[in-house]
C-alpha cells in the first residue's frame, strides 16, 4: 500500500523508534521538572552523561545492570509465553535469600563449587516460587497476577524473617544478614580492580547475563519447548487442540521465568550486595525487570540493551545530587518512559479503531481472494 502513512501508523509499526521516542520524551519531562525546580537540565544531564562515560563509571553501569538484565529476561520470557510474571519481585527476593543462606552457612566450600551451588539454589527456589502460583492457577483457576502480588509480599516478609534468624543475622549492629563468604563472591580481585581502575564491585556477572540471554533466545526461537510455550501464549485453545498440554506449559513457563528472577537475585547479592538487609519496603528489582522487558520489547537482545540503559540511569542518577538535582529525577524519567511505551498499546488500538470498519475492504495489493 502506498497510502500516505500517518504518524500513528509509523509509531505503531516501528517499535524501536517508538521506544527511542519514549525515552526522549522521558528526558524531556525530566527537564521540565528540573526547570520548575530552578535547575539546569543541561547541567544535570551533563552530569548524568559524564558519570557513565568513563571507564570506572561504565564498569559501575555494567555491574548495576546485571540484575536488571536478568530480571528483565525473566519477565520478557513470561511475556512471550502469555503469562505476566509480575511475581518476579518475590522470586528475586527468595532467590537472593537462598544464595545468601548458602553463602553464609557453607563458607568453606571452595569457590568453583560454592558459586554454582548458590546459582542453582536460587534458581530452584525462584522456580518453585513461580510454580506455586502456576499450580494455583491450574488447579483452582486463581488469577496469577493476584497471587503473584501476594507472593511478593510473602517473599518480602520471609526474607526479613530469615535475615533475623540466629546464624544468619549479622553479628554486628547492622539490620542485615552476615556477609556471604568470599568463596561465594563474584567480585574480581582487588588488585586487578585497582590496576584497571574499575568499580570497586566489578564482577563477572555480566558474562552470566550474556549466557542467559543467549540461552533464552535459543529456547524461544529454536526449540520445540519455545514453540509450545509461544503457541500456548498466543492461543491456548489452538495449542490444546493441536495436542499441546496447556497446563504443563504454563507451569514450565513460570518455572523458567521464576528461575531467572531467582538467579537475578543471586547475581545482585554475589556481585554487589554481599548481604541482605532487613527492608521496610520492597526493593523493586523484579518490578524494574518489568520495565526493562517492556523497553526491550521482550526481545532477549533488546532486554540486554534496555538493562544496560536502566543500570546507567540508576547509577548516573545516584550522582545527580552532586549538581543539586534530586536522585528521584530518575524515577520521573523512568516513569515517563514506561508511560509512553505503554501508550504504544493505545496507538495500536487507535489504529485498529480507524481501520476496523474497513478492514475487509482493504485487501493488500497482491492479496488474491480465496
Amino acid at each position, binding site marked *: *500500500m*502506498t*497510502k500516505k502513512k500517518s504518524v500513528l501508523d509509523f509509531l505503531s509499526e516501528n517499535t524501536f523508534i517508538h521506544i527511542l521516542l519514549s525515552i526522549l520524551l522521558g528526558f524531556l519531562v525530566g527537564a521540565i521538572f528540573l526547570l520548575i525546580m530552578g535547575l539546569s537540565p543541561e547541567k544535570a544531564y551533563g552530569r548524568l552523561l559524564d558519570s557513565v562515560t568513563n571507564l570506572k563509571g561504565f564498569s559501575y553501569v555494567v555491574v548495576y545492570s546485571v540484575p536488571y538484565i536478568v530480571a528483565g529476561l525473566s519477565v520478557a520470557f513470561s511475556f512471550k509465553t502469555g503469562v505476566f510474571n509480575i511475581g518476579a519481585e518475590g522470586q528475586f527476593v527468595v532467590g537472593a535469600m537462598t544464595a545468601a543462606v548458602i553463602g553464609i552457612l557453607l563458607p568453606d566450600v571452595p569457590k568453583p563449587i560454592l558459586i554454582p551451588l548458590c546459582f542453582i539454589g536460587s534458581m530452584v527456589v525462584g522456580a518453585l516460587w513461580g510454580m506455586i502460583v502456576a499450580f494455583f492457577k491450574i488447579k483452582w483457576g486463581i488469577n496469577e497476577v493476584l497471587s503473584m502480588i501476594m507472593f511478593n509480599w510473602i517473599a518480602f516478609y520471609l526474607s526479613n524473617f530469615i535475615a533475623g534468624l540466629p546464624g544468619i543475622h549479622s553479628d554486628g549492629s547492622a539490620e542485615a544478614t552476615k556477609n556471604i563468604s568470599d568463596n561465594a563472591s563474584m567480585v574480581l580481585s582487588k588488585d586487578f580492580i585497582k590496576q584497571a581502575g574499575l568499580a570497586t564491585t566489578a564482577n563477572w556477572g555480566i558474562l552470566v547475563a550474556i549466557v542467559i540471554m543467549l540461552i533464552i533466545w535459543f529456547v524461544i526461537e*529454536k*526449540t*520445540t*519447548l*519455545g*514453540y*509450545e510455550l*509461544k*503457541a500456548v501464549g*498466543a*492461543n491456548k*485453545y*489452538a*495449542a*490444546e*487442540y*493441536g*495436542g*499441546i*498440554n496447556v497446563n504443563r506449559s504454563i507451569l514450565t513457563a513460570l518455572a523458567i521465568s521464576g528461575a531467572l528472577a531467582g538467579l537475578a537475585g543471586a547475581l545482585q547479592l554475589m556481585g554487589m550486595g554481599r548481604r541482605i538487609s532487613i527492608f521496610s519496603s520492597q526493593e523493586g528489582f523484579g518490578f524494574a525487570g518489568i520495565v526493562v522487558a517492556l523497553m526491550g520489547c521482550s526481545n532477549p537482545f533488546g532486554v540486554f540493551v534496555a538493562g544496560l540503559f536502566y543500570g546507567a540511569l540508576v547509577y548516573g542518577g545516584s550522582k545527580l545530587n552532586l549538581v543539586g538535582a534530586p536522585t528521584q529525577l530518575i524515577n520521573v524519567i523512568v516513569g515517563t518512559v514506561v508511560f509512553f511505551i505503554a501508550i504504544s498499546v493505545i496507538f495500536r488500538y487507535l489504529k485498529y479503531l480507524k481501520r476496523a*470498519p*474497513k478492514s*475487509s*475492504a*482493504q*485487501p*493488500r*495489493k*497482491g*492479496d*488474491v*481472494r*480465496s
Partner: protein
Amino acid sequence: MAKEHVDMSTPVIEMRNIVKKFGDFVANDGINLTVHKGEIHAILGENGAGKSTLMNQLYGLLKPTSGDILVNGKKIVMNSPREAIEAGIGMVHQHFMLVQPFTVTENIILGTEPLKGTTLDMETARKNVVEISERYGLSIDPDAKIEDISVGMQQRVEILKALYRGADILILDEPTSSLTPQEIVELIEIMHNLTADGKSIILITHKLKEIKESADFCTIIRMGKYIDTVDVEKVDENDLASMMVGRKVTFKVDKPEQAPGQVVLDVRDLHGVDYRGVEILKGLSLQVHAGEIVGIAGIDGNGQTELVEILTGLKKGTSGDATINGVSIFNKPPHFGFEHGVSSIPADRQKHGLVLDFSIEDNLILQNYDRNPFSEKHILKRDPIFRHASDSIATYDIRPDHSEKRPAGTLSGGNQQKVIIAREVQNDKDLLIAVNPTRGLDVGAIEYVHNYIVGLRNKGKAVLLVSFELDEIMSLSDVIDVIFDGQIVASIPGKDANENELGLMMAGGKKA
C-alpha cells in the same frame, strides 16, 4: 417474489461511477448502484471484491476518490457516519458494537439518550424501543442484558438501534454469517416487514441462497469492478455464482459410488453434559466406515458441539465409548486421539484451528512440531519446516504466494481454512472430523473445501461431517445421521435424503 412493495419510481440511493483507490490499489472501479424505496438490494461478491469498501463510502466511513452519491435524489458528501445517519442511512456491521453488560434499551439509546430535565428518561426510551420492536416483529425484550441474549437477538438489537436513529435505508453487512438456519429465516421475515413499511435494505453477502430468498435486485461486484445488476427472480443460483467468480461453478460434487470399508469410528451409547452441566448427549451411537462421509444433520444445540468436543478430546463425556479402529479415545487428551487416527477441521478456525500470530509455516506443524522432520532432539529444524510450508502453499493453493513467514491472521478466511486443510489432510489420519468447514467462505472456497473432503473419502478415509448447512450435508454425505435431543434418531442414505423430510426429523418429527 412479488415486487409490489418496491416503489420503482423513487430511488433512495444512487451511487454513480464510484471509484475508490488506496494508493495504486483500486478497490472500487466505477461501480453503480441504485436502490429504490421498499427494495431489498443484494450486493454480491467474493471476499475482498470491494463490497464493504463500497458500503463504507455510503456510510461516510470512506470518501470516494471519484463518483457521486445521491440520497433521495440529492447529491451529498459525507465526512463521517454522523452525516450518513442524518441522511437516514443505518448500518449493521458484521461484528456487533454493543455494550455487553447493558440492557437492550440502554444500548439502543446510547449516544442519543432522551432526557427529562437533566435526568435520563428511561421510561420514554423503553416505550419507543418496544413500539419499534412490535411494529416490525422484532420481539425484543427491552430489559434483557446483551450478554444474556443470543447472537440472532443481538443482531436485531443492532437493527433496532439503526431504526431508532431514524434510518430509512439499512445496510446489513454479512448479516447471516453467525446465525443459525432458524434465525436466518426469522431475519428474512423481519427484512420483509421492514420493506413493507417503506424501508430499503442493502444486503451485503456472498450467500446465493439468501439472495434468492430475500432480495429483489442484486448487484454483482468482482475484483472491484461492477459486473451487473440483475432482477433476482430472473436468474438462478448458478448464474449468480458464475457472475460472482467469473467462471462456471459446479455445485454438484463429483462423487463416485464406492462400497464403504471397515468401521473406523464407532461411538456407542455416549452420554455427556453441556457447559451448564445439563445432560445433552443421551446415549448417542454412530459409526463411520472407511471411504464414507457421514453427515450429522441437526439443529444447533442438540448435542453436535459436545459430540465433537468429546471426540477431539476437548471435553470429557460421562459414559459410553468411542473407538478409532478398535482403540478407545473416550476421555483421552487431544493428542491421544491424534496419535490414533483423528484429525479435525474445527468449527472455530480462529480459536481452535490456528494460532493467528504464528506464521503459516508454524501453523502447519501445530501437531507435528515435536517430531521428525520438523525437529530433532527438541531443536526445531527451520529448513524442513519452511520447505513443508512452501510445498503446502503450492499444493493447496494458499494465497498469497510466498507467505510462509506471514502471520496466519493476515490471510483471508478462505485461505486460513486452506492452511488448516493442508495441515489436516497431510496428517493423513484415518478419520477426519469436519465441523462447519465452509462457514463464512465464498463459493469458490466452498467448492475447494468440498473437493478435498470428497477426495479424502475417495482415498478410503472416514469423514464425520457436522454442518448447519443442510445443502452441504446433502451434497456430500454417503449417510446422513439426524441428531435430535442428544441421540441419532435416523440414519438414511445420502442419495435418498430430501430436505423436507430431514427438516421434520431434525425438529423431532417421526423417525424414518
